């Protein structure tokens, strides 16, 4: 009787589970695209680190993360116990009396204690502390699940301690009450999983494994196949559908999003949850622009914080860029981008300036046109290097350093914008035109190694151009110069004025994970570094990426103003930057700050400078008139190891 009742319940729970999962499976099966996982090694590494050891869960929230780790490992450990008990209940086989099971049960006790401690902590956080990231209301279902998990552990501990021996409740032996409670909770849990955020238990190993190993991977569109980007819910690709069902609603993306932090409507978490809701409601024809809050899609700086902090492998960047592509292909780009696209089409640079200005700069700086026989490296100027007077100072500093170290380098006779703005804003056609043209020029010139001072050029040339047949090594000047100047010490007598804070560009710190080299360079130049809030691989964006350099009018606080405040709060006397976009934004923020005598307009304004300028002025043999090092290490240029840009 008891066995049959349990069998019936197991079948019922399984049926309810399968029915809910089938709805999701069908949505996944009909979604376009494929679930592919090329390049196995980085995916396996990510899986071990992020799933087995929960590195992303722990990284930014250590206490909560470790509590979660305990629950996760406990769950894994308990799989065997639950199976054995279920087999017994179904009347198939009873292994509970074996010595092995007793040993296993004993070994589970610490796990159970860990889970119990972990879940108590998590429940208190969710129910009592209620951090903003988790949303405005307390999810009752989450608390119920917490209670379930706690009950599972308590019933297990009672069983393991044999505490129920001989005790009966209303004539029923406590052992049975305990067993049934345990099993009913398991069955209820099974039924609740598919329609809750706890589906991440089943899906997140897959989504983490399927996530592109390089941040910001947005494959090119194939115009031959008439691909134009995402327009409707039904066009969401398989991984995006999986992401929507996997999202665990932890809010790390939201809390790290610079747009959300400055009062804009964009909330990366909401985009994913809106996808889930629309998919389950079967609104496959609903345009994404009607699904999302306007203009959320155009408030993303593509800083990548959301995706990089997500513990379950959700990829927000390809979603946003692809949805932008869908809008741009219908002529729905925001008005501030229209002149930029025109400039890129007509003049090949984002500001619409004449190429003769670039030539003037090259002539004035006294650098040679690249010749593969004479030169080892190309210095890629980028739009800012070619046209922006302020950033040209940074390039002159780089040239001075390279010349002092006798590096054999040249610049290309002509360059077009690498297409970063076109790519990130979804003007894929324009991007491909620029990419194709640049790759042809680079390959024709015989370029094998590229140095650039612009992290956006680094990302595009070093990663996005791979799809266009460009295979040269691409490195940021910070990385190259760091290796070039190892062992150098600051010019004696140059005073180190106060402290320096370094603003990591998103496309360098987060995308390329280059955080040590700039700091090593600063230290070598004699700087004392004060780290700002949000730094290294999780910096707070300057607000320029994703085409927002051209927006200027922002709702809420300007992202650049927020970042400038964070940098100023370090009390540093100098802010050092390593990206032309960051430099434009943060200098603008400084100019706008302190309009009413607040920070920035103080007696001694914070010096805003570029990494290369800072270094060139402070390392010997560059600008101090001293002869170059007797045995120039650059006679054999430094060999880079590892992957060029990741």
């Amino acid at each position, binding site marked *: 009787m008891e066995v049959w009742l349990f069998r019936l319940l197991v079948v019922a729970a399984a049926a309810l589970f399968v029915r809910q999962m089938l709805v999701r499976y069908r949505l996944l099966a009909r979604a376009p695209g494929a679930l592919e996982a090329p390049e196995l090694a980085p995916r396996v590494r990510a899986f071990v680190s992020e799933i087995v050891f929960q590195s992303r869960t722990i990284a930014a929230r250590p206490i909560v993360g470790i509590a979660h780790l305990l629950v996760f490992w406990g769950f894994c450990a308990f799989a065997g116990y639950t199976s054995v008990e279920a087999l017994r209940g179904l009347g198939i086989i009873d292994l509970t009396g074996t010595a092995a099971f007793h040993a296993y049960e004993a070994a589970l006790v610490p796990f159970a204690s860990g889970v119990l401690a972990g879940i108590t902590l998590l429940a208190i956080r969710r129910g009592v502390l209620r951090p903003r990231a988790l949303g405005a209301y307390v999810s009752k279902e989450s608390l119920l699940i917490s209670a379930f998990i706690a009950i599972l552990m308590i019933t297990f501990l009672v069983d393991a301690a044999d505490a129920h021996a001989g005790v009966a409740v209303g004539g029923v032996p406590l052992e049975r009450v305990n067993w049934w409670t345990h099993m009913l909770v398991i069955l209820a849990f099974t039924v609740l999983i598919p329609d809750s955020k706890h589906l991440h238990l089943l899906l997140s190993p897959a989504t983490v494994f399927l996530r592109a190993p390089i941040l910001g991977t947005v494959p090119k569109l194939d115009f031959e196949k008439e691909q134009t980007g995402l327009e409707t819910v039904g066009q969401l690709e398989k991984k995006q559908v999986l992401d929507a069902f996997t999202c665990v609603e932890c809010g790390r993306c939201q809390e790290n999003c610079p747009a959300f932090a400055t009062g804009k409507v964009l909330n990366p978490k909401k985009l994913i949850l809106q996808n889930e809701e629309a998919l389950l409601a079967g609104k496959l024809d609903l345009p994404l622009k009607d699904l999302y809050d306007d203009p959320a899609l155009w408030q993303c700086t593509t800083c990548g914080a959301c995706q990089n902090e997500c513990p379950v492998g959700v990829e927000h960047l390809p979603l946003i860029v692809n949805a932008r592509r869908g809008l741009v292909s219908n002529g729905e780009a925001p008005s*501030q981008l229209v002149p930029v696209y025109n400039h890129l089409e007509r003049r090949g640079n984002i*500001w619409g300036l004449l190429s003769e200005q670039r030539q003037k700069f090259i002539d004035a700086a006294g650098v040679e046109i690249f010749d593969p026989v004479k030169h080892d490296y190309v210095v890629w100027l980028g739009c800012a290097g070619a046209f922006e*007077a*302020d950033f040209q100072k940074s390039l002159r500093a780089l040239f001075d350093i390279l010349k002092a170290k006798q590096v054999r380098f040249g610049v290309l006779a002509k360059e077009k914008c690498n297409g970063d703005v076109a790519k990130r804003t979804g003007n894929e056609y324009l991007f491909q035109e620029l990419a194709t043209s640049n790759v042809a020029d680079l390959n024709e010139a015989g370029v094998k190694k590229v140095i650039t001072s612009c992290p956006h050029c680094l990302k595009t040339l070093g990663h996005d151009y791979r799809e266009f047949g460009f295979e040269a090594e691409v490195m940021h000047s910070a990385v190259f110069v760091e290796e070039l100047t190892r062992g150098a010490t600051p010019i004696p007598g140059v005073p180190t004025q106060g402290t320096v804070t370094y603003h990591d560009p998103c496309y360098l710190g987060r995308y390329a994970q280059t955080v040590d080299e700039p700091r090593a360079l600063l230290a070598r130049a004699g700087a004392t570094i004060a780290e700002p809030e949000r730094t290294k691989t999780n910096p707070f964006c300057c607000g320029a990426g994703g085409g927002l350099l051209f927006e*200027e009018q922002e709702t809420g606080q300007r992202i650049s103003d927020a970042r400038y405040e964070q940098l100023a709060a370090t009390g540093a006397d100098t802010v050092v930057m390593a990206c032309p976009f960051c430099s434009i934004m943060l200098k*603008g923020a400084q*100019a*706008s700050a302190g*309009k009413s005598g607040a920070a920035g307009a103080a007696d001694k304004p914070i010096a805003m400078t570029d990494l290369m300028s800072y270094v060139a002025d402070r390392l010997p043999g560059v600008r101090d008139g001293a002869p170059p090092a007797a045995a120039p290490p650059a006679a054999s240029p430094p060999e880079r190891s590892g992957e060029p840009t990741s």
Partner: protein
Amino acid sequence: MILVIAEQKDGAINRASWEAVAAAQTLGGPIRIAVIGSGATAAIGEMAGAKAEGVLTVDHAALASYTADAYTHAIAELVTAQAPDVVVAAHTYQARDVMPRVAARLDRPLVTDVVGIQAGSPPVCVRPMFQAKLVAEVVPVGPAPHFVTVQIGAFRADSAARGDSPAPVTTVDVTVPADAIRQKPEPPFREAKQAVDLTQAPRIVSVGRGIKGEEHIQLARDLAASLGAELAASRPIIDAGWLPSDRQVGSSGQTVAPKLYLALGISGAIQHVVGMKGARTIVAINKDPDAPIFEIADYGIVGDLFEIVPAMIAELKKG
């Protein structure tokens, strides 16, 4: 004979129509200038000053406000009656709307956006193609008349030859049947967004963060007044609320191309530069000799604007 279609609004000739006259004159041969509208007396008088065989006035109540149908009808009838070899108009917004319709109605070729024209039968027209990546010579085919619109600024209005005595004015009657007009013009309006139109200002005095305080804006205002210039600013000044946003120059403000742009305490951030790089002469005053503004300035003064500007005002007042 070459027929020029002149464009007028409320009796004022569009300056670009003089450029069309100049273009027509390079072809040699007699020229007639048609003024389309209703009661455009002043415009007729102005065009009579051109060196031309005659001015034709096409006056009809239905032509008082522009509609594509009425103007197409009137111009097509005029061209048919006059039988010119070439019809020339300036490539204005109105011409872009109406000239293709007229050419299509008469089944004759139209060459648009022409930057150069050589006499001949038919004339050889030069026009940019593929976003000015190449310049093509285009020869219209088939029987005359051939229609040509000339790019604004490609010919100089002041080079149009004036006649020794006013050209004779002839009235040409056209029939514009009311039922042929499908559009109903609304009263013209200007978008109120930009209360201050800096784009038309010949001289601009622009202030940046170097002005330091709201109380010093008056100094720049005084300089602007003594130069007969408009006052403008870079973004930080607008952010601070020291000047209204319609005075902002730059990528999120207005794009200006004055004859003189005087930048006071402006560092020259790229977003500002893209809004004023088209200025004929740029004069920059800035304390910081490394300020990027000096890279594009024609004249640069490294110094304290609070010393220099009062001296400039004093000097201007003398003159």
